[in-house]
C-alpha cells in the first residue's frame, strides 16, 4: 500500500491483506540498505493472524520516495508521522539493526503511542568500524560483500527465505545492491552507516521507554555482537517489562532462522 508522509510517497507492505487501522498494528522497520522484503514472511504471518501490518520502506529505500532522512531522530519522527498517515493511534514497533534504533527513538519520543518495542540485532551505541565506514564510502559494492558475509552465520541456513532454493548470501547481496542503486543522489550505504554510527541518544531513549520491550539476538551475530546488548537492557527503565531472547543465527536472523524469529516475535508481541 502507498501512503503519503511529508508530501512524499511511502510504500508499506501490508502482509497480503488490506490494511485495517482498527486492528492491533505492528510496524516493521528495516535496517541499513534493506527494504520491507526482509520482513515479508513475518509480516504476512501477523497480517493473517489478526494484526494490521506496516512493513515500511524508509525514505529513499526500495519503493519509497527519497531523499533519505538524515538521522535516527528524524527517522523516528517520520515513523510517528507514518502512523498518523495510516490512521493508527498506537502500534507495536519492531526494528532490525538500524531499524531497531529508529524504533527505540520513536518509542522514547511518543511512549503513549508505542505498545510494544522489539529490537532485533541491536546494539547501543551502534558504532561502525572504521574499516567498514571507509569501505562503504570508497567502494560500496565491496562493503556490501563484506557486510553480507559478516551478516550470515552459515552457508546452509534452512529452510531458507523467503522459500526453499533461495541462496541467502546471494539474495541479500542482490537486495543491498538494488537498494544502493536506487539512490543516485548519494551513497546510501555510507549514509545509513553514518546514521547508525552517529546515534548517541540510545541510552537516554531507553530510559524513556514505558512499554514492554524485547531484544532478540542472533547467537552468532558478527555485526551487532550479543555482548553489546547488556548495555541497552540495563538502560531500559527498571519498571519496563524486558525480555531478551536468542536465536541460533547471525545478524540476518529473519532470513537465517525465520521460524525461530517468528516464535520469538509471537512471544514478544503478546
Amino acid at each position: 500500500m502507498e501512503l503519503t508522509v511529508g508530501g512524499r510517497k511511502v510504500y508499506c507492505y501490508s502482509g497480503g491483506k488490506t490494511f485495517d487501522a482498527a486492528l492491533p498494528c505492528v510496524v516493521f522497520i528495516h535496517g541499513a540498505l534493506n527494504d520491507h522484503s526482509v520482513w515479508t514472511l513475518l509480516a504476512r504471518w501477523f497480517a493473517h493472524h489478526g494484526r494490521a501490518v506496516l512493513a515500511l520502506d524508509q525514505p529513499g529505500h526500495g519503493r519509497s520516495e527519497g531523499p533519505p532522512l538524515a538521522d535516527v531522530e528524524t527517522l523516528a519522527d517520520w515513523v510517528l508521522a507514518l502512523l498518523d498517515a495510516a490512521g493508527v493511534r498506537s502500534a507495536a514497533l519492531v526494528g532490525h539493526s538500524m531499524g531497531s534504533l529508529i524504533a527505540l527513538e520513536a518509542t522514547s519520543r511518543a511512549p503513549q503511542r508505542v505498545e510494544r518495542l522489539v529490537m532485533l540485532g541491536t546494539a547501543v551505541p551502534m558504532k561502525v568500524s572504521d574499516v567498514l565506514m571507509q569501505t562503504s564510502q570508497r567502494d560500496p559494492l565491496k562493503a556490501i560483500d563484506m557486510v553480507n558475509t559478516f551478516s550470515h552465520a552459515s552457508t546452509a541456513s534452512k529452510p531458507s527465505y523467503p522459500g526453499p532454493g533461495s541462496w541467502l548470501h546471494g539474495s541479500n547481496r542482490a537486495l543491498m545492491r538494488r537498494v544502493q542503486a536506487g539512490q543516485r543522489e548519494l551513497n546510501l550505504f555510507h549514509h545509513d552507516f553514518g546514521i547508525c554510527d552517529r546515534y548517541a541518544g540510545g541510552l537516554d531513549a531507553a530510559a524513556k521507554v514505558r512499554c514492554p520491550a524485547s531484544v532478540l539476538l542472533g547467537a552468532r551475530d558478527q555485526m551487532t555482537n550479543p555482548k553489546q546488548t547488556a548495555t541497552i537492557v540495563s538502560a531500559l527503565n527498571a519498571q519496563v517489562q524486558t525480555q531478551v531472547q536468542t536465536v541460533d543465527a547471525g545478524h540476518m536472523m529473519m532470513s537465517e532462522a525465520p521460524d525461530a524469529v517468528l516464535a520469538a516475535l509471537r512471544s514478544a508481541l503478546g
Partner: protein
Amino acid sequence: MPGASDPGFDTLALHAGAAPDPATGARAVPIHLSTSFVFENSEHAASLFNMERSGHVYSRISNPTNAVLEERVAALEGGAGAIATASGQAALHLAIATLAGAGSHIVSSSALYGGSHNLLHYTLARFGIETTFVKPGDIDDWRCAIRPNTKLLFGETLGNPGLDVLDIPTVAAIAHEHHLPLLVDSTFTTPWLMKPFDHGADLVFHSATKFLSGHGTVIGGVLVDSGAFDWNAAHAQSGRFAELAAPYEGFHGMVFSEESTVGAFLLRARREGLRDFGACMSPHTAWLILQGIETLPLRMARHVENTRKVVEFLAGQPMVASIGYPELETHPSHALAKRLLPRGCGSVFSFDLRGTREQGKAFIEALKIFSHLANVGDCRSLVIHPASTTHFRMDDTALAQAGITPGTIRLSIGLEEADDLIDDLKRALKVAEKAGSR
C-alpha cells in the same frame, strides 16, 4: 562460515546449501525420498500454504535435497536462488512460461541446441509465443528484433554448433535499455568457466545432465535468477511482467515483486510453474548432480586441459579441414572468448574431416575410447557424426545451410589420459583416410 569474504568457488562447490544433517549427523547430503512433509499442526499447514512460513510441503514444489542443489548452483553462479527441474529443457520452458504467454514474443540467438530451437520455433509457436531468431554476433539485429510484446532475450554462452561466444555484456545492455531480461543457457561453460551474471545476464539455466552432473547418469536442469532485474520498475516503464508485479489470482492475489524484491521470479516460477506444469526433479537425481558438482572445479580444469591438447593435435592433421574452437585465432569469436572465457572454452567442439560422408562414418566406427552417442559433458569422451545421425535425412546442400559438412564431427572431451585420446583419434583418422582411397 563467517569470515571477511564469502567462500571461494571450490569451497562453495562442496559446502553451499549443506550442513551436517541436524537429525542424524550425516555429513553427506541425505536423499529425502519423500513425496510430502508432515505439518506440525493445522496452523503450521495453513501458514506454509499461504507463504507465511518457509518450508516443504510436497516434493513437486520443493524438497530438502533439491533445495541443497538449488542453493549450491545459485551460490556458484552468484545468483539469488534457483529451481531444480526435470531437465534442461524443463528449465528453459519454466523460465519462458513464467514470463510469457500467448501473444508474447522472444528474441533468440539462432545458434542454439536443436531441442531449444524446436521448443522456440515450433512448439511455443503452437501456444502463441513467437520467436525471432538473430545471428548472435549481429548486435543490430538483436536491437531491431525487439517488439512491444517481447518478454526476454535468449542465447547460449557457447552457441551450437559453431561455439559462437554470446556477447553477454552487449546483448544484456540492449535488453536492459528496453526493460527486458537476458536469459542465458550456460550448459557448455558452467559457472567455473564463466558466470553470466557478472556480465549482465539476468537469468541462467543449465542442462545439469551435462557438466554439472558430469557422469552421464541423470537428466536434470537448474534455473537460476540473479535477483538483479527489477520486474516492478520494468512493469512501471513498459507494462510488461504483470505476472510478477500485479496481483495473481492463481495465488490469493499475491504480488510476487512485493513479497520479494529480488526473488519474485523464482517465487512465481515455483508457486505456479512447478505447481502447475510439474516438471520437477527427483531428489535422487538432485543428489547425483550434487555429487558431480563437488568435483566440478577439478573436472572442468581437466576437461579444458585435455581439450586444448586434442585441439592442438587435430590442428596438425592433414585430414582435418577446420576446427571450430574459440581459443583458436581463426575462430570468429576468438577475441570475445579471450575476454569472457579466460579459463577456457569448454570441452565440446566440432571439426570438419576432409572427405565424404562415408569417411566420416569410418572415422566414428574406428574410435575405441570415444563413445558414439548423443550427449556431451560426460567424464568419458564422446563423439557424434551429425551427417549420419542427427541430420542423416539432409542432403549435402541442406547440411551446409545448417553449418554442417559431410565430415563434421562433434567431440566432447572427457577426463581420460589426453595421450590415449589422441592415439584413438590418430588411429581413426588413418582409417578414415583409407576409406577415401577405396
